[in-house]
């Protein structure tokens, strides 16, 4: 069994990697990368050479290529101490054309060109774009840069190696003076026991210094009460949908209006703010840079998330999804069963019409129909994160449950009828068993086996959300993340979300098989026992 499971997991991992590779080829290689500028107002304000360098810098930001301007190169040489400030200032000034370079500049340009061409970069020099009278046009300043498309294998390797981040005390650069690095275990979490507080609150926590997150493990009042920051997932950084934030964080962070609370900062100052001190991460030099940080924090762990009233995208999708899934099983299975038992009677006919309606009619049509009907009945048709009412959940749940109910009814009826016509049932009947006995001891159990296979999948996929339902009722869920990312060319999010879906589908298939094997003793995955 264990061996089989391992094989399945490895196989699933392989599929997931292939999916990510295919998606990377699709979005980075096949698509016209010029499209990202179609909705970009800044692009139209640039002209001539500036437009070309602007394009390069944006493409780098979207992850298409690696772009190194000559200026950055010279500045880096200066920062590394290889050249002094006077040389740097001289070397940066490239001439309007190559032959107008000073001797020193030409030397560094040659060095730059040689170094980057050796690395496989394409070095581009744009001469100044001048008018007839010799004046430089708007944006026509000369430019020199090296550029290289990131090859697929490199992109994939970087992606997968950066996916899991294990926090360690060497995260903060060695040059930074942060005192003694180390990990410290405390029974009295400083967030719950601020400076000067009288009574001590018992709350264990692991605190790091030199790590990215200050709090590596801690307890608080929010579900699931124990939180860790040791291992963080990076599925892909967003660029347009939720700038600079990882996909996984985008899906799991709370939304809505801020929850203000009186909090005591490490310096002992109290303020009414929504900051979550447990989420503090290190940003070098941030304490000195901002006045309020000096007032509140004692170190550079100043970057905190905020507490918001609403749930996360996954949270909303999951609440709506799981309730509709449960409703679908609770309603769909008994109705499908009743249809099979009263085949060709009124209930069966009505059920068949309902199934036909749901399968044939475009989902958009009946979702809008229910929205209109629900609106007439006085139910809220738009989702509002700040409202505490539960009624706004009703219509999205109903819209999601309708197709699942039809689907379960259809399959339950089919499996039941197949079982009722099978030979073993005829044999049992001829053996004198009562219909009730045949039903409860034989048919029911056998018909349920294929249904059981789908249960883990429908629970897991409840959290990915539904595109149309969430759009129609304006639910702030996870369902629209992929379409949003596609519409806004957010490559990082597309890859991240696809990977997330692929992992969920692999896991739910394996869980389905395992569940089926536990329900049905005839199914065994280990070859030895046969």
């Amino acid at each position, binding site marked *: 069994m264990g061996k089989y499971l391992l094989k399945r997991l490895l*196989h699933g991992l392989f599929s997931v990697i292939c999916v990510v590779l295919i998606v990377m080829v699709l979005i980075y290689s096949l698509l016209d990368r010029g499209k990202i500028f179609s909705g970009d107002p800044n692009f139209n304000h640039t002209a001539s050479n500036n437009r070309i360098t602007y394009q390069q810098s944006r493409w780098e930001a979207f992850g298409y290529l690696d772009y190194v301007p000559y200026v950055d190169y010279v500045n880096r040489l200066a920062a590394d101490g290889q050249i002094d400030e006077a040389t740097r200032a001289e070397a940066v000034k490239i001439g309007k054309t190559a032959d107008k370079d000073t001797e020193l500049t030409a030397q560094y340009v040659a060095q730059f060109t040689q170094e980057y061409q050796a690395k496989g970069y394409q070095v581009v020099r744009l001469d100044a774009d001048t008018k007839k009278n010799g004046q430089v046009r708007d944006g026509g300043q000369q430019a020199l840069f090296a550029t290289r498309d990131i090859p697929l294998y490199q992109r994939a390797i970087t992606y997968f190696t950066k996916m899991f981040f294990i926090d360690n005390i060497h995260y903060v650069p060695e040059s930074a003076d942060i005192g003694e690095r180390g990990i410290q275990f405390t029974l009295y979490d400083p967030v719950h026991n601020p400076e000067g507080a009288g009574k001590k609150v018992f709350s264990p926590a692991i605190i790091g210094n030199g790590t990215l997150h200050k709090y590596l493990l801690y307890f608080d009042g929010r579900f699931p009460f124990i939180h860790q920051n040791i291992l963080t997932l990076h599925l892909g950084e967003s660029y347009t949908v939720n700038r600079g934030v990882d996909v996984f964080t985008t899906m799991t962070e709370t939304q809505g209006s801020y929850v203000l609370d009186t909090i005591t900062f490490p310096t002992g100052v109290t303020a009414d703010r929504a900051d979550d001190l447990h989420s503090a991460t290190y940003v070098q030099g941030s304490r000195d840079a901002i006045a309020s940080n000096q007032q509140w924090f004692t170190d550079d762990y100043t970057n905190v998330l905020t507490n918001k009233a609403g749930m996360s995208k996954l949270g909303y999708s999951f609440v709506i999804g799981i309730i509709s899934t449960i409703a679908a099983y609770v309603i769909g299975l008994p109705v499908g069963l009743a249809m099979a038992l009263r085949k060709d009677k009124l209930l069966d006919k009505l059920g068949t019409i309902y199934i036909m309606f749901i399968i044939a009619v475009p989902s958009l049509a009946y979702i809008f129909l229910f929205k209109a009907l629900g609106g007439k009945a006085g139910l809220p048709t738009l989702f509002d994160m700040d409202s505490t009412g539960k009624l706004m959940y009703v219509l999205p749940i109903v819209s999601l449950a309708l197709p699942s109910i039809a689907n379960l009814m259809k399959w339950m009826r089919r499996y039941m009828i197949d079982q009722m016509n099978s030979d073993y049932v005829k044999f049992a009947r001829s053996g004198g068993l009562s219909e009730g006995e045949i039903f409860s001891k034989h048919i029911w159990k056998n018909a349920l086996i294929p249904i059981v296979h789908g249960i883990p999948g429908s629970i897991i996929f409840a959290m990915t959300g539904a595109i149309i339902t969430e759009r129609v009722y304006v639910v702030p869920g996870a369902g629209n993340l992929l379409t949003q990312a*596609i519409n806004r060319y957010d490559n990082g999010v597309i890859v991240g979300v696809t990977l997330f879906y692929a992992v969920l589908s692999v896991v739910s298939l394996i869980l389905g098989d395992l569940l089926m094997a536990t329900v049905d003793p005839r199914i065994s995955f280990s070859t030895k026992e046969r």
Partner: protein
Amino acid sequence: MNEKMDLSALGLSDEELFSHVDHSQTESEKITAPRYSYWKSVFRVFFRNKVNIIILSLLIFMILFAYIYPAMTHYDPFANLRDANAKHLSPAAAMEYFGPDLKWILGAGASGEPTFDAIWNGSRISISLALLCGAINMTIGVLLGAIWGFSKRVDAIMMEIYNIIGNVPLILIISVMAMLFSPTFWTMVFAMTVVGWLSIAFFIRTQVVIIRDREYNLASRCLGTSTIKIAMKNILPFMTSVIVTMLATEIPSYISYEVFLSYIGMGMSEMSLGKLIYAAESAMVTPGWEIEFWSPVAIASIITVVLYVVGQNLGDASDPRTHME
């Protein structure tokens, strides 16, 4: 010939009265059952149900109407664009403003276009898309699915491909295609068929695997029948009803999927039914304009339901077990 006849009265000899009949090998092989023709029986069972006749005529009428009506009326969506009074008219107001005509029966839309014409023009595009995608996907799917089911080596490779491609979101593939080429009708056909056949092929593969190793096929193989003949004569007839039933769910599903894609802003540039619904979404919440939204929704639903019902009942009729009577 109930009356008894006295043969001796005729005065004929036995040789003249009786002739010897040879035992014929070919005649004895013939079965004296009524002639059975598969397709004739399919249609006999199908048309026995009067509801089917009505729905089939409705389907034929709708398809013909969707193709003939737009061709005859030369629909121009921007004809009344400059006429500010012609926009968002209710059927009664449109009739009054333009004079009574069939095309104003559903009122006028956002740019003064007759909603009725717009819908049938959109239906023509949507039906064409569905029929084309259905034909391409079913042909490729059934052929490859049969090979997939028969060959164990192909099965191993195809299962891997299926597991991988199945996890790539379909909207991503379609939008990449739409961005790669322009979002035209043919791009949409290509995008829907490039991986669309895979699920059909998988379904057919499963069916073939179930039937492939049954005893009668084993016997056929032992008697030296070639694989192609087994596929054509033993397995294909068994699957006709499955294929027809599948077609019944596939074709309407393309119309629905096109509506879905247009709604999330990834549809094609042509004014299909989905695009009409998408464009009229804002009209739904405006009192008095609802008809602009609900009429394409209603027509799309009617087309899909009719297609589905005809296909399902044809699928039932093509199951030989329903032919016994």
